[in-house]
């Protein structure tokens, strides 16, 4: 009896603690006026995704330069890594402590902030046609466009390309493939020449989705594909999906050495296989080009070439679409420092600073027009970004353009296709079921 009472008391105490923590939400502040003249004083907080080498110094240098220009401004940096930024952003959002400027991906992630009223509408200052807006490529701006309004400041662009070892191709006597079928055919000669044709590590799940989304863009008519990203209009029943999944399976079986065990291979292992001269090809983002050929790797920048993943013959979709998306920053709609935040981001995206970002060691191709040049950036980055700019359209990463339930279904589906535990049809059914749940 006594024990029961103590337990009840303990539970009640715990309950009270939880409840008192949840009580009371601060009233929403007035909407930020982003066009106002900035007052150069006070603290400006920024949440970046640039923690760790080699990116960390970029914002530190900029903050120091900005503070030197405006001595009454104190820039407070919260730098996170790709892994930790999701949890940090969620906690700061929930506790209404979101910084004045914060990092965002495109797609579903940014949309949540827009619909939640946490992203300031920047149309008046950054829409195409405005002075600031014209410094960016229009495609990067519209990646952050929702309901006709522009919210994001794109910092750098990104796209996915097949990087290859030109020497390996020469030794095996194969040319850069023009169709998906040629790519698969090239794998035999490359293997005979002693190379792993395509290095592929899918331990994290998302690398498979990068292949899939590019194949979807090729095989599925563009309007159908875009309708499928929204749970309300999605059907996920186009025959192009099944053929994409089949092509992906062929590629894994024929061109990788790891085959059905690819799910256990680290992304970095695959990256090192190309950098170390053991693999002939590796599917990668523009952001990685400079680290593949960095000092210490046996692949020199001269031996490194890139090509767009070739489209299958007679595919029904858009063969000129490239998978990729910019990443950028939003300004907190409730921030009292919004005008100053805009001013700081204008400073960050000045051509000079944008060029620094696009050059080694950072190698993040800025979304500012004219920042990526042959002189400042490496040849591969320049070539990749030119192709991104020339693409008919940019298709965002599959796990960021879909809602979380559907993205999870695709992640599981991609792994199942690789290991052979599910057929393309079964994977598509699980995606349809996930979509029905999300509606």
């Amino acid at each position, binding site marked *: 009896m*006594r024990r029961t*009472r*103590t*337990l*009840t*008391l*303990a*539970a*009640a*105490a*715990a309950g009270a*603690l*939880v409840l*008192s*923590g*949840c009580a009371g939400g601060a009233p929403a502040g007035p909407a930020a006026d982003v066009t106002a003249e900035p007052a150069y004083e006070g603290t400006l907080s920024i949440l970046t995704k640039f*923690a*760790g*080498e080699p*990116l960390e110094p970029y914002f530190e240098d900029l903050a120091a330069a900005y503070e030197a220009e405006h001595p009454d401004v104190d820039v407070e*940096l*919260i*730098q*996170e*890594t*790709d*892994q*930790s930024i999701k*949890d*940090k952003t969620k*906690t*700061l959002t*929930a*506790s*209404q*402590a979101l910084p004045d400027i914060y990092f965002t991906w495109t797609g579903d992630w940014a949309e949540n902030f827009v619909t939640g009223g946490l992203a300031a509408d920047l149309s008046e200052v950054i829409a195409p046609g405005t002075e600031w807006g014209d410094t960016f490529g229009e495609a990067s701006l519209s990646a952050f466009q929702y309901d006709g309004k522009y919210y994001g400041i794109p910092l750098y662009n990104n796209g996915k390309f097949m990087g290859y070892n030109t020497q390996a191709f020469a030794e095996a006597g194969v040319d850069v493939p023009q169709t998906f079928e040629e790519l698969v055919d090239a794998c035999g000669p490359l293997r005979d020449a002693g190379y792993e044709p395509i290095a592929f590590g899918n331990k994290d799940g998302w690398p498979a989705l990068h292949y899939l989304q590019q194949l979807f863009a090729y095989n599925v008519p563009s309007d159908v594909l875009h309708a499928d990203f929204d749970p309300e209009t999605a059907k996920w029943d186009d025959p192009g999906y099944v053929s994409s999944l089949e092509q992906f399976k062929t590629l894994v079986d024929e061109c990788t050495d790891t085959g059905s065990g690819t799910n256990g291979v680290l*992304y*970095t*292992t695959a*990256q*090192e*296989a190309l*950098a*170390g001269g*053991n693999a002939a090809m590796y599917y*990668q*983002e523009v*952001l*990685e080009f400079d*680290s*593949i050929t*960095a000092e*210490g*790797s*046996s692949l020199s920048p001269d031996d490194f070439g890139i090509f767009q993943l070739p489209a299958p013959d007679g595919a029904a979709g858009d063969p000129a679409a490239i998978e990729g998306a910019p990443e950028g920053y939003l300004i907190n709609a409730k921030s009292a420092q919004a005008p100053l935040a805009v001013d700081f981001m204008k400073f960050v995206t000045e051509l000079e600073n944008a060029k620094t970002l696009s050059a080694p060691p950072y190698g993040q191709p800025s979304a500012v027009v004219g920042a990526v040049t042959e002189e400042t950036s490496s040849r591969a980055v320049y070539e990749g970004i030119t192709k991104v700019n020339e693409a008919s359209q940019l298709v965002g990463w599959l796990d960021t353009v879909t809602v979380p339930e559907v993205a999870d279904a695709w992640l599981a589906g991609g792994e199942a296709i690789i290991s052979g535990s599910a057929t393309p049809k079964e994977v598509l059914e699980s995606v349809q079921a996930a979509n029905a749940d999300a509606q």
Partner: protein
Amino acid sequence: MSRLGFLGAIGRVFVWSFLLALVVVVVYPLLWMVMNGFKTNAELFGDPFALPLQLDWENYVDAWNRGVSDYLTASVLVTVTSTITTVLISAWAAYGLTRVRMPFGKVVSGVILGGLMLAPAVALVPLVRMFQAMGLYNTFWALLILYTAFRIPFTTFLIRAYMIDLPREVDEAAEVDGASRWTTFWRITLPMCKPILISTVLLHILFAWNEYLFAMVFTSGTSIQTLPVGLTSLMSKHGTDYPVVFAGMVIAALPVIVLFFATQRYFIKGLSEGIGK
């Protein structure tokens, strides 16, 4: 006699080979980590199990300079201070709960032990708001307060359970000899609780050294981040320099290993006499 000896020898061989196998299982991964700290990324991925080709300390120096020295300082500082505050406050609380008659004593015990049921993740959001309002967010004090507050219920629970069974006659004898409460606590009760105190100190050190969630949410920047969070910032989505990460992990593990060997005796004694009581 000779037969028994033969069987005994067989038994010994088995026991020895079993223990040796255990040593390999435990020591090899650690050794692998140390060795890979000497390689380059290409060597590591080219032949993960080979011995390093050279023994230069470049990666270790690199890791040290890339923030591990700061993370280590922060970790040591937070661990030491929060251990002292947690164990002392808990010991006082346990003494009060077991030796002092007070009104609503049961309620007070219930409230303190109720803290055990509060999952840290649940309290995260209100805590961030509170700490921001108080200006403690992203400071050393945030971690010190959180680690102390969240470990007091468990530590008090352990010490209280031990103190309840200590004979009250000793306290009474002290009282008869003219000792005040204060003296009784410091000179009589606390020394008698040594085994459980050692156990709680060890448990708290392990907790504070490895804690990730609070450290990740409440701090940013190299100056106050602790090792578990800091080491992840050595890794990136594309192109992690793994040998440097391994070197950082070795540096992070060293203090705990040294601590273990230095206090091995208390470790075993503390665990067997304290918790296994």
